[in-house]
């Protein structure tokens, strides 16, 4: 049981690193913002695995919802 939780932790962190790398790597702006939101959503999943559902709800709604909306407004404003 403990090893399953450890595998879940490590795979979530690896996927977070991959998503953050993709956010830097993409040339277009909208896929980069979506990759940043995916990284934030995986951070919320990591908080939930660490037994903090309270922080997970706040992180998922602010980091993945509101920040992405504001970035999309900024991209629409520059084009």
């Amino acid at each position, binding site marked *: 049981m403990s090893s399953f939780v450890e595998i879940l932790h490590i795979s979530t962190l690896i996927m977070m690193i991959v998503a953050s790398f993709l956010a830097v790597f993409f040339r277009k702006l909208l896929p980069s913002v979506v990759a940043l939101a995916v990284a934030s959503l995986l951070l919320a999943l990591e908080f939930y695995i660490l037994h903090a*559902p309270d922080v997970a709800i706040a992180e998922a709604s602010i980091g993945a919802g*509101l920040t992405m*909306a504001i970035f999309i407004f900024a991209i629409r*404003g*520059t*084009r």
Partner: protein
Amino acid sequence: MKEMSRIVKTVTNFVYGFIVIFGFYIIAHGHLTPGGGFQGGAVVGSAFALLLVSYGSLNSGKFLKKDIFSLFENFGLILFIVLGFSGLGITFFYNFLANSGGWFGDAAVIGVNPGDMNTGGVIPLMNIAVGLEVLSAFGVIVLTMASGAEFTKKKERS
């Protein structure tokens, strides 16, 4: 600002009501389950952001108005500070409704139980006040950012 494609708008039509109901569920069950006023208000605010991103600021101006959000924000803050001052007979923020038998006044059950909504005293009312304030503050933030993007675009055109 322009609206997005038809796929995004259809998914928004399906999902929007569920997100709003889930946010109000988190606010109303704040004293029993994880989450509270801030988290539920943030969920409802992200639903407003979704509506504004997918439909554009011109089409959703009928549903999201900055004046009504500002009014709700002031109402939430005034309700919170009135509830704080109401317990001033003993101390500031005294829980004067707990175990009184009236509103949210049942005694808390000890042990494993499904959860009684009618407990907690003044805590659910404060959760509702904070939720109303955070919800409308996020609506104001999103509307201000959208109008700022519109203004920048118009300035670069000319």
